[in-house]
C-alpha cells in the first residue's frame, strides 16, 4: 500500500495532506509527501493500493470524509488545487488513460482557508492528528492492506 499526503505547506489548510504524511512517517508508517504538479500523481500511484490524503472544500472544516475516484471527478469545486492540475485532474486523466491504481482511497480533510503563506487552522491540525492515529492503527495491524473505507466527522 502506498500512502500519499498531497498539498502545499505554504497555502493554509492545503498543508493538511503533507503534514499527515510527515506525522505518519514519524510513527514509522511509510508515507510520501507530494506538493505541486498533480500529474506526477499518475507516476506515483503505479502501486496496487493507494491512499491519498488531501485538503477539501465543501465539507465542514476539520471533518474528514472518504471519497472514491468517481466522487472526485464529479466534484469540480471540492478539491482545490494551488496549481492547474490537482487531484481531480489526476483522477480524470488516470481514468481516461487507464492509469488508475487498483484501489484508490481518498481521505479528504475539510479546510477553511487556503491563503498564501497562512498557517493551517487549528481544527485542521486536530483532524490531521485524528486521521494519522486511525491510519497508523490500521496500518500497524495490517501493513499490507488498504485502509478500510470509513466516514467520520469531528
Amino acid at each position, binding site marked *: 500500500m502506498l500512502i500519499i499526503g498531497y498539498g502545499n505547506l505554504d497555502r493554509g489548510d492545503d498543508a493538511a495532506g503533507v503534514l499527515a504524511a510527515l506525522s505518519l512517517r514519524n510513527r514509522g508508517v511509510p508515507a510520501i509527501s507530494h506538493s*505541486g504538479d498533480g500529474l506526477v500523481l499518475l507516476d506515483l500511484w503505479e502501486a496496487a493500493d493507494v491512499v491519498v490524503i488531501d485538503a477539501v472544500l465543501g465539507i465542514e472544516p476539520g471533518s474528514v470524509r472518504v471519497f472514491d475516484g468517481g466522487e472526485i471527478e464529479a466534484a469540480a469545486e471540492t478539491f482545490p488545487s494551488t496549481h492547474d492540475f490537482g487531484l481531480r485532474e489526476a483522477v480524470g486523466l488516470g481514468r481516461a488513460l487507464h492509469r488508475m491504481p487498483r484501489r484508490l482511497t481518498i481521505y479528504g480533510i475539510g479546510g477553511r482557508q487556503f491563503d498564501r503563506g497562512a498557517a493551517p487552522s487549528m481544527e485542521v491540525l486536530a483532524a490531521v492528528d485524528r486521521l494519522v492515529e486511525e491510519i497508523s492503527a490500521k496500518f500497524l495491524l495490517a501493513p499490507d492492506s488498504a485502509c478500510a473505507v470509513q466516514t467520520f466527522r469531528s
Partner: protein
Amino acid sequence: MSGAKTIRVDYMARVEGEASLLVKVKGGAVQDVKLKIFEPPRLFEALLRGRHYSEAPDITARICGICPVAYQMTSVHAIENALGVTIHPQVRLLRRLFYTGEWLESHALHIYMLHAPDFLGCHNVMEVAQKHPEVVAEALRLKKLGNRIVSTIGGREVHPVSVCVGGFYKVPTRADLLALREELKWALDVAAEKVRFVAGFEYPDFDQPYEFVALSHPDEYPFNEGRLVSNRGLDIEASEYEEHFVEKHVKHTHALHSQIRARGSYLTGPLARFNLNHEKLPAVAKQAAEAAGLRAPCLNPFRSLVVRAVEMVFAIEEALRVIDVYEPPPAPHLDLPRRGGAGFAITEAPRGINYNYYRFDDKGLIEIARIVPPTSQNQKQIEEDLAAFVPGLLELPQAELTHKCEQAVRNYDPCISCATHFLTVKVENVKEDAC
C-alpha cells in the same frame, strides 16, 4: 451586437498565476484592454538585497515552479559576469542540457495540457484525454522525460538544488546521462510526429506586425548565451538592456510593463526565437517544421503552439548531442574570486527572455537585484493583440468571444506568478454610457 460590450474574465484558467481580463468595446471599436495581474507582488528583488550572491540561485528558483531553471541560471550567469569568470565548457554543456529538460516539461505542459483544449473543442485536458488518449499519454511521457533531465542534473524536478555560481554542487556521471539516452531516442520520433498533429489544428488568421526580440548566438539555437536582437535592428549585449528597455508601472496591474524605449511593445518567446534563429535549428527540427508547413517569418501568435512543438524536437536533439559528448568536468564548480562587482545576463526561459542585473559588495552581499521576467515583457503585447483581435469577432456570441480572448492570452503561455504574478473571463453587455 457590435454596439457597446464588455468582456470580463474575472479569473483566467489554464494560465499560471492569478489574473483577470477586461476588454471594453464601443461602436465596434476597442476602447480599452486591461490584463490585470492581481496576484500580489512577491518582492523577490528586495528579498535578495543584503544576502550573499551564493543564495541567489536557490532563492530565484522559487520564483517559478514551471521554469525555475531559467531563473536560477540567469542569476548565476549575471553573477559570473560580475565576477569576470568563465565556466568550464563541460559545465556549459550541462547547463544547456538542464535547459532542454525545462523546455520539454514546460512546452509539453503548455501545448497539451493548457492550450490544446482550446483548439480541440475541449474544456480541459481530461476531455482531450478521452478524445485522444494516445496523444495525452505521450505528452505526459515527454513531460516526465523533461522532469527526469532536470532532476538528473538539478537534484530534483522542481526548484533544483544543485546549481551554484560557477557550476554545480554536484555533476552527473557520464553513466547518469547515458541512462537518459534510450528515452530521448523514443522522444525524438514522437515529438517530430507531434509537430504535424499540432500543425493540423485550425488557427485563426491573425498575422501581426510584431517586433520580435530574442537571444541570438552565432552557432546555436539560443538558451543562455548570445546578443539580444530584434527584427527592427536591435542588436545589443545584456549590459545594454536597460538603455533600450524600460519597465513601467501601470495602474491596473501588479506586474510592470516592459517596453522598448524607442518603439513600445515587443514579443518575446518561441515565435521570436524561431523567426530570428530558425537557421540554427538542427536538421531534424527544421524538417519537422518544414513538414508541418511552418516557415519564418511566422507572424501569427496562435501558431506559436507549432513553434513550441518544433522547439521540443530541438530540445530532444540537443539533449542527445550533449549526452554524446559529455565528460564530467575536472571540478563541479569554479573557485570564485572574493570581490564585488556588477553583472548582467539574459537567458531564454520557455516563454521568453529573462533579464537579470546584480550588483554586490566586496563581501558578496547583494546591493541591487533586478529581474525582468518574460511575462512582464509580453504583457503590453498581449493587450495590444486583444485590441487588434477583438474587432473581428464582435458578431460572435458573448461566451464564444470571451473564450477566443482567453485563447489569445494563452498564446503567450503567461506565467503570471512569475510576473508579480490566474486569468478568469466573464462577458456582459453594457449600456453605451457605461463604457
